[in-house]
């Protein structure tokens, strides 16, 4: 593939030079019947290239896609995504075919005339109403998922976690026994209290600051996001989750993890993807990679934006609880 493109590139440059040299002699400027013919055929060829590229990409690159969603909300997301994608591909396949086919079929012939066809209210009505109906369906379906994902007011006993962003690092804080986060403001940042937790707030004492995110499977997690400097975005692609972190404001997102890290490592698609990655790594002489959920930054935030990540571990509730209990509370940390 690579070599082919290099060759293509060399051809372009050669052609460019040759053509530019001959332009002084070539005075052909308006398409003749022969041009119409050749270019029309080229559109047909291009149509084939285009479908080829689409099919090639789908076959070859599908392996790159994210594995199955690891949250309940993410599963709904994936279904909505599939439905939309099928719709898009059908429309794409039909319209592009018509476009290239017409460009080929109706390439100009000398001495013929085009059809004088300026208007058809019926046709226009059809292709206004059909998209309108289909889109109305999409809106309703999309919004039902959106509201489902964004509204977590009726969650029972959710876990509250604060995710805290700064150039170029993530931190997190669990709400502790009272399941209520203590107040915080950047003006309280001092020494080891890196998130600016307000230690005079009694809700804050049992909060648990961490550098690695652990989540229990099957329990709704409500994330509260803060940033201490510029915009960041907490992107957790495996859970189909994302929310910006905005200085001066607390933003929120929620999902229910549905697969532990272990389970995800055993997922068929994950295994295929990881094997593929490890083959590539082996070629470069790098250590093998083991799958982990990740939180990455997805809003330009400065020089090391490209390397701002935190590991996420999803485990069974019991394991999660024992991990959480082994962490120090704010009160213990700040002392």
């Amino acid at each position, binding site marked *: 593939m*690579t070599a082919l493109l*290099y060759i293509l*590139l060399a051809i*372009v440059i050669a*052609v460019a030079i040759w*053509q*530019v040299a001959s*332009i002084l002699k070539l005075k052909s*400027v308006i398409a003749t019947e022969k041009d119409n013919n050749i270019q029309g055929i080229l559109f047909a060829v291009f149509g084939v290239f285009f479908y080829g*590229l689409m099919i090639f*990409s789908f076959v070859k690159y599908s392996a*790159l*896609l994210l594995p199955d969603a690891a949250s309940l909300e993410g599963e709904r997301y994936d279904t909505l995504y599939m439905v939309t994608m099928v719709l*898009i591909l059908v429309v794409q396949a039909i*319209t*592009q075919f*018509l476009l*290239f086919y*017409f460009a080929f079929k*109706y390439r*100009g012939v000398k001495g*013929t005339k*085009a*059809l*004088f066809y*300026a208007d058809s209210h019926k046709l226009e009505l059809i*292709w206004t109403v059909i*998209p309108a109906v289909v*889109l109305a369906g*999409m809106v309703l379906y*999309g*919004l039902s*998922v*959106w509201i489902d*994902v*964004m509204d977590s007011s009726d969650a029972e006993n959710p876990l509250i976690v604060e995710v805290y962003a700064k*150039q170029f690092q993530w931190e997190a804080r669990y709400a502790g026994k009272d399941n209520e986060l203590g107040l915080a403001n*950047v*003006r309280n940042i001092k020494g080891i209290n890196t998130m600016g937790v307000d230690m005079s707030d009694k809700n804050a004492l049992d909060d648990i600051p961490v550098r690695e995110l652990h989540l229990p499977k099957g329990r709704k997690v409500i994330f509260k996001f803060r940033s*201490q400097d*510029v*915009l960041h975005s907490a*992107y957790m692609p*495996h859970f*189909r*989750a*994302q929310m*910006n972190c905005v*200085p*001066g404001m607390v933003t929120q*997102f929620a999902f229910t993890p549905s697969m532990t890290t272990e389970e995800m490592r055993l997922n068929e698609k994950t295994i295929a993807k990881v094997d*593929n*990655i490890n083959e*590539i790594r082996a070629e470069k002489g790098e250590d093998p990679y083991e799958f982990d959920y*990740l939180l990455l930054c*997805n809003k*330009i935030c400065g*020089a090391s*934006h*490209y390397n701002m990540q935190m590991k996420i571990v999803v485990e069974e509730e019991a394991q999660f609880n024992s991990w959480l209990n082994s962490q120090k509370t704010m009160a213990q940390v700040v002392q």
Partner: protein
Amino acid sequence: MSDHHHKETFVTKYIFSTDHKMISKQYLVTGIFMGIIGVFMSMLFRLQIAWPERSFSIIEAFLGHHQDGGVMSPDIYLALVTIHGTIMVFFVLTAGLSGTFSNLLIPLQIGARDMASGFLNMVSYWLFFLSSLLMVISLFIEAGPASAGWTIYPPLSALPQAIPGSGLGMTLWLVSMAIFIASSLLGALNYIVTVLNLRTVGMKMTRLPLTIWAFFITAIIGVVSFPVLLSAALLLIFDRSFGTSFYLSDIFIQGEVLHYQGGSPVLFEHLFWFLGHPEVYIVLLPALGITSEIISTNSRKPIFGYRAMIGSIIAIAFLSTIVWGHHMFVSGMNPFLGSVFTFTTLLIAIPSAVKAFNYITTLWKGNLQMNPAMLFSIGLVSTFISGGLTGLVLGDSALDINVHDTYFVVAHFHLVMGVSAIYGMFAGVYHWFPKMYGKMMNKTLGYWHFWLTAVAAYGVFFPMHFIGLAGLPRRYYSNTAFPLFDDVADVNIVITLFAILGGSAQIIFLANFFISIYKGKKAEQNPWRSNTLEWTTPVEHIHGNWPGEIPAVQRWAYDYSKPGYEEDFVCQTTPLKEGEEES
């Protein structure tokens, strides 16, 4: 109008010209020059993405102290992306495209001697020139140019502590853009007034070519939305320089709490996208207008659904001002607002779909003349559909969650606005070059240019969808920090190679363009056998456009292959025959 006899000096003719035809050429050449810079930048940062650790002598040669041994720094990577985006969107596709063709075609196609105010038109160009100059100068300052993305979200864009480009570089960016906005407002007001007041006898609004409708509505969108960007920029300047807190609050950076309190970056996002979304239509509508004209002329067929096309331009313009929130679904904005914006966004898909269907129907049973302009127009319809369809994913708030700010977005907007509008611009240049320079461009080079560009454009942007769906965020200097993304490295190499192919193909265009100006074949008066008024003016430019009276218009612009006529075109100045119906 008899004042076109005064003597012209070199300066008044070529530099401080008030003639719309000359101003149009000035816009075009400046736009092409900026385009060279913008595309070249994309080549440089694509090298870094494809081969993150490799040293390139071209990077060493161009990036001065922003590189080390031929490897660019993360800061300059972000700066290149930022300036690339800014230049392509504003300088090439707003000023370069709209400025060129609105100026050239509005007076010529409506039958006017010049713009309503030639003087303001000249001022508008020179402000654009000045802003281009400032943007280019900002590339050479010590700390590097603005690097917070073309969307310049604060606080990143407000704090030099956060990224070095937010110092003097950002100041220059803001000043340059403020001047740019002034320029485009002057231009837009001129276009609006000209279209409303200076149409020739018989040129009813319902007889205007679709090019003019597109430029006219585009100008209105510009007047409505650009001032909002100006105020956003002004408030940002206040926050940066005078200590106000419109956008900033509770910031701790480099060991220090800043004084800002009570502002919100989300406010900036609202203001920015109130322009930012209409901006994509400011870029796109003129390209669609040009395409309508070219597809109809070269199909030798009336544009299908003329009135529906006008209706959809107006609908798109109106809706484009109430969809901006689709860029902010995960900004922390109230989710209910997200629902509203999903609704309005999917609404805008309807007029867009109508336009696409109408183009395809125009080709049906046509007699297609495959001139280079026609190829680019057909190409535009293709990329407009490919890019537009993925808008259904991004416009759906639920689906946007997981692809927002990934390469999926980069693929989407490049196809629907970047490539489509660039194709429109190329189509326009090939089609109206004879009108601008009195010469013809070479068609063989045009064909090579189109096919290489078309293959490269899809080669670059189609695979990008997949790496986006793999979860790869945009604006990453390198993907090596994540083993998770090791499997997209190969795709990135393919993309970069296609990008180099596409970039190189533009050399063919540049050669064709500049050589044809001097050595091109002399143009006939109406080379494409077109109906519109611009082809009734003499090939040699004269001040005032028509030597005698301005011709009166008798019919709409799309009587191609009309039954009852010998020729397959009927100029707008030809009176209707007895009993003939106007379409």
